[in-house]
């Protein structure tokens, strides 16, 4: 028998992040154009403020803003609480040095403790939320003072996990990173020149001493992003397990996703008429 060679398509590899790869140069150009269009063309503004935490998300946004508006038009605000790590402050300084943006440090300790002294029983979550909301008050106020716009830094993974304080981290009106998974934020940051010490350190909201995102999640960003990628495409949990993803990881990610839809929406309004805003009366944000 004349046997023909049989060529098999490669088996699916659940440990591969190939589907999350991005063309960094193309995406950088696109995000710079986005910032220019949304800030300058649409809103007729020339400057922006961004909270620079020392983490990779805000570092990347600072780099993108510097390209889009010119470093002299970007105002980075460091907003440490007394328990914030020195590393966070130092890494924020590295971003300023690398980009040339303006920098200002505004302590939130007085504002936060002013309230928390009245709420001594507040647990870590409540304290973290107060800090995040205090930072947002400052960011918006600084933007008002400077006549410019606050720019957000939340990434897609934390948005999908609901890992942010509602109406705080998510509230700036323009956000270039909201459709980028965390692993893609890392890739783009490497491309654009964010100092490696910032990219390589464990991601942390730095609201509680020693806190890291991945410990809070119970899964690494790399693993979570691979699962999220397929869940958002419409693959079922059982299909993902069949493809080789560990069942416990799929379940964890799906639960995070399913319990946080509300955080990705505006407040629920009782509909009473057939002109209900955003149900019947529909106008886009830039109309």
């Amino acid at each position, binding site marked *: 028998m004349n046997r023909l060679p049989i060529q098999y398509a490669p088996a699916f590899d659940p440990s591969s992040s190939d589907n999350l790869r991005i063309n960094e140069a193309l995406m950088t150009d696109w995000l710079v*154009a*986005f910032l220019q*269009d*949304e800030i300058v*063309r*649409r809103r007729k503004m020339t400057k922006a403020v961004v909270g620079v935490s020392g983490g990779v998300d805000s570092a990347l946004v600072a780099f993108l803003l510097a390209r889009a508006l010119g470093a002299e038009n970007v105002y980075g605000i460091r907003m440490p609480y007394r328990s914030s790590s020195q590393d966070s402050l130092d890494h924020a300084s590295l971003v300023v040095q690398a980009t040339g943006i303006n920098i200002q440090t505004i302590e939130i300790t007085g504002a936060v403790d002013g309230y928390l002294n009245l709420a001594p029983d507040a647990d870590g979550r409540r304290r973290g939320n107060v800090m995040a909301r205090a930072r947002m008050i400052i960011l918006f106020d600084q933007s008002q003072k400077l006549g410019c716009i606050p720019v957000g830094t939340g990434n897609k993974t934390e948005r999908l996990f609901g890992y942010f304080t509602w109406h705080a981290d998510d509230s700036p009106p323009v956000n270039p990173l909201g459709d980028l998974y965390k692993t893609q934020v890392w890739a783009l940051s490497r491309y654009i020149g964010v100092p490696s010490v910032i990219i390589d350190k464990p991601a942390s909201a730095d609201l509680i001493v020693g806190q890291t995102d991945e410990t809070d999640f119970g899964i690494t960003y790399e693993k979570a992003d691979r699962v999220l990628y397929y869940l958002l495409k419409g693959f079922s949990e059982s299909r993902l397990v069949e493809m080789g993803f560990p069942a416990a990881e799929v379940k964890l990610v799906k639960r995070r996703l399913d319990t946080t839809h509300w955080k990705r929406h505006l407040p629920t309004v009782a509909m009473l008429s057939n002109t209900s805003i955003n149900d019947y009366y529909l106008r*886009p944000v830039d109309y």
Partner: protein
Amino acid sequence: MKYEVAVAQIKPQKGATAYNLDRIGEIFAQLEADSPETSVLALPETVLSGYFLEGGVRDVARSAEQLFADLLAVYRQNVKRLDAVLDICLGFYELFEGKYYNSALYATLTASDDFLAPSIAHIHRKFFLPTYGVFDEKRFVSRGRTIEAFPTRFGRVAMLICEDVWHSISATLAALKGAMVVYVLSASPGREFSGRHIGNIAQWNVLLPGVAEEHNVWVVYAGLVGFEGGKGFTGSSQVVDPWGNSLIQASMSDEAIIRATIDMDDVAIARANSPLLADLEATLGDITLQLQQIAQSPHQK
């Protein structure tokens, strides 16, 4: 016969028809100054208002006659040469007989009635309305019912709008009805950044040469640019010859005008070597029978 075509991709101001008409007037003036030999100007889908309007469609929609009158007035304000003539092809939200449409107008503008009477040649109403993901057209506009080819000063042409072209049947109908040039007007939001080009541009770069090569027609593509609420349109306006070669392509994000010479004789040359359209015409009877069978029993037993 040869003629000069220009494609202008601009960032319209959202919902500001008068402002956007003025921008088109500036383009008329620039073409008259820089390249008065231009015969046809193509502009993208919804260029007078921006694309994502939701309920705002009803605020900006206008009749084709009203648009034609406005374009003619703007043309005559900006072009004073008495024998000046320009065909224009552009996208707009239309109010027609009590319904709203995502439409394309093809008209001939003249600087003077004495030289040539201005006229509307055709209105195409978008046939395939995307209503999925980021798109929600069926909620706000009605669907066009026909795809036509129509006569112009430069031969028979057709217009298609964005998703129309993502269904190969649309360009096939246009070619079968005699179109030798297909104008494709689009507002295509960029998404997927993993490859050499943004995902939807990569797809257009397959679709447009595919249409041109299969039917041996010229394809003139006008793509909107600029961001609307975070969604950026990918421009990349281009002119493709009847062999499927893209002769020129604009940037994915900047306003620009591209120019090319269209030689209508190329259509016959290309078809003589690759008579796919004639082969299709010869089998239309069988294809029609098949289509009727499918339409009469849409669900397989």
